[in-house]
């Protein structure tokens, strides 16, 4: 009889968590991984694999774990996914592989993400890299953006025999994984391992290069056989309410860039400052809002309040991160929508004027639409506000590439194979879908890499 409960994962103790940026979830030990792996039923239909965007053969790698053949298990994953230590940590497993796991009928699904991470960590510890690439060069591809989509595209195209150059606007590679997701969820050594891997495969990563400014797409098409746009959705949205220009108000992206990329938490040792008071309100309910909140607590902010306009059930954040945030002391004001920010005589934000909401009928996204309750306005006193209500596509490239078709929101329009309206130009990841997930960006980029190969060489 299998256990109905997953082997619980160890976490850093609460008091340590709130003082450092050390990783919170510690991952399975070998014996824990073995014990958890034993729960797998090896279902014939493999519902778990079908729900994984990269179709990892889950039952198979879990079987190898049971046999303690970790290298073999890892190889099963690497066939489909070059970055297991990343996806094992950041995939929203509860809506992907683990959602359809048969074990859910009995209790907890198999902790697939934790087992994948176990193997990813094993990979890093033992420095296992699959560096096989064809000798003959089939062509040259330029990739714009070094987030998950760009990195995946690079790996896949390298393995198909292409020379690959990635152009990245920022001074570090990794996209959201380096400037957005904090170290306590995705340690930089993990990201560094994989960036190093991509470089070792022979991919040329050129930093500090804003495409659309330093080179246009047209120019890239002269030097490369194909261009893959993987520029993400990095432009922060604001609420468009009065007071957003006040000091003390940050977009989530600015907050995260200052902390994760510029190391403002080490100011003045590092030169970039961040200025936080005792109480901060974070507007939004996604991963970004959770990350900002948990960082704020680690920086000594006394009270962090998440303002979200729907209920907990609708929050798009990974379940695990909502739980972690709660454990760490983040407070939630649900069904609450800010309508104005109010500043003091020094132009610093002091209050968020809010209105209470109730849930109405489901909207197009299937989630129940929040509606304001008239007369329910109230103020929340704050020293800072961080706006984490999502991001949209940066329009830099479109502006210099008039032929590139985009939809109303600026998403690059592609056919089902990832081709844009311009010949030899492809796109994948958040720039196509809008803000989504790492795994979806990986899956899309992989598919597009094969489209490029097919279009250039009739391969598959």
């Amino acid at each position, binding site marked *: 009889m299998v256990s109905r409960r997953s082997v619980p994962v160890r976490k850093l103790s609460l008091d340590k968590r709130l003082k450092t940026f050390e990783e919170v979830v510690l991952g399975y030990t070998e014996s824990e991984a073995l014990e958890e792996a034993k729960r797998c039923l090896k279902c014939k239909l493999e519902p778990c694999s079908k729900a994984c965007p990269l179709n990892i053969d889950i039952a198979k790698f879990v079987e190898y774990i049971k046999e303690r053949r970790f290298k073999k298990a890892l190889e099963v994953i690497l066939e489909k996914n070059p970055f297991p230590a990343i996806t094992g940590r950041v995939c929203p497993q509860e809506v992907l592989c683990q959602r359809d796991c048969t074990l859910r009928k009995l209790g907890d699904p198999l902790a697939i993400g934790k087992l994948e991470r176990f193997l990813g960590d094993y990979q890093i510890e033992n420095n296992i890299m699959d560096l096989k690439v064809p000798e003959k060069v089939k062509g040259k591809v330029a990739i714009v953006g070094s987030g998950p989509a760009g990195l995946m595209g690079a790996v896949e195209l390298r393995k198909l025999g292409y020379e690959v150059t990635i152009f990245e606007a920022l*001074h570090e590679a990794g996209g959201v994984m380096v400037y957005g997701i904090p170290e306590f969820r995705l340690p930089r050594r993990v990201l560094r391992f994989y960036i190093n891997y991509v470089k070792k495969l022979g991919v040329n990563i050129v930093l500090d290069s804003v495409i659309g*400014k330093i080179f246009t797409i047209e120019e890239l098409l002269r030097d490369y056989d194909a261009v893959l746009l993987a520029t993400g959705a990095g432009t922060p949205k604001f609420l468009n309410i009065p007071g957003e220009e006040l000091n003390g108000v940050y*977009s989530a992206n600015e907050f995260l860039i200052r902390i994760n990329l510029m190391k403002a938490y080490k100011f003045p040792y590092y030169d970039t400052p961040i200025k936080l008071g005792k109480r901060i309100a974070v507007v939004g309910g996604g991963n970004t809002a959770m990350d900002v909140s948990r960082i704020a607590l680690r920086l000594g902010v006394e009270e962090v309040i998440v303002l979200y306009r729907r209920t907990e059930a609708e929050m798009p954040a990974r379940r695990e991160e909502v739980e972690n945030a709660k454990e760490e002391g983040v407070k939630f004001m649900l069904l609450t929508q800010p309508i104005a920010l109010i500043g003091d005589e020094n132009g610093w934000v002091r209050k968020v004027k809010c209105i209470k909401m109730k849930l109405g009928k489901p909207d197009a996204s299937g989630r129940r639409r929040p509606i304001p309750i008239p007369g329910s306005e109230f103020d929340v006193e704050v020293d800072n506000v961080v706006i984490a209500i999502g991001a949209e596509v940066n329009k830099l490239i479109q502006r210099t590439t008039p032929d590139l078709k985009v939809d109303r929101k600026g998403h690059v329009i592609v056919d089902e194979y990832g081709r844009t309206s311009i010949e030899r130009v492809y796109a994948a990841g958040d720039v196509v879908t809008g803000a989504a997930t790492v795994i979806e960006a990986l899956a899309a980029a992989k598919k597009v890499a094969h489209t490029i190969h097919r279009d250039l060489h009739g391969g598959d």
Partner: protein
Amino acid sequence: MFKILSNHIIAPEIRKIEIYAPEIAKRAKAGQFVVIRVDERGERIPLTLVDWNPNKGSITLVFQEVGVTTKKLGRVKKGKYILDVIGPLGNPTEVKNYGTIVGVGGGVGNACLLPVMREFKRAGNYTVSMIGARTSELLILEDELSEVSDELYIATDDGSRGYKGFVTDLLKRFLERRRPDLVYAVGPTIMMKVVSSITKPYGVKTIVSLNPIMVDGTGMCGACRVIVGGKLRFACIDGPEFDGHQVNFDALMNRLRMYKEEEELALSLLEKSIKR
């Protein structure tokens, strides 16, 4: 890594620096800027492209040593390197034949005025430059500006050169007599605010080049947001030039003060470490 080709003081606390950045030099246009980061712990700051030489592969920046980053940059010797130079960023100035253009510069903004006036002149405009500084020692690039201006006026706060008073007084007097087709202002925010309020009653189109605090310079952070025509705009990708009559300058000035204490702390620490 970007090599420093030269680094000179051109006025007290103002430096001109030439950096090897061939791809940027090929594409730079008047009105654009770069973001630089000096070292591993450094902040990213924007500086205007004052000149560029595609043959030599170099770009020229002029900056005032006001805080940690500009002081660090000032100390990087010829032949040494800085970590990052990103650009050309921002929208280029819309250069066409407007007719008569008055360019107003203040302080280090005079350097930013130079490439813009040069292009305006090249496009066949009649160019009038008005440049101001606290005192004559701080007047920079006067000869260069004179070369691209049909008329050049100078103002210093202390009267040590040219008109005694603000450069905006010169503009006011000019408008009492003549009607330019465009006024272009770059310099301290308060100066650009005053310029815009002077030109407004005359209905003269006024472009200002804004200088909010920036981080990435590519539209990803929103630190550079300014209110223009009642709407939030990002100066790095929507600007840095905007219609001066639409800009909420008070909000911008407020935002520029946000890190005052941190800037002072960082600077005092840097100065201590330099002394040691």
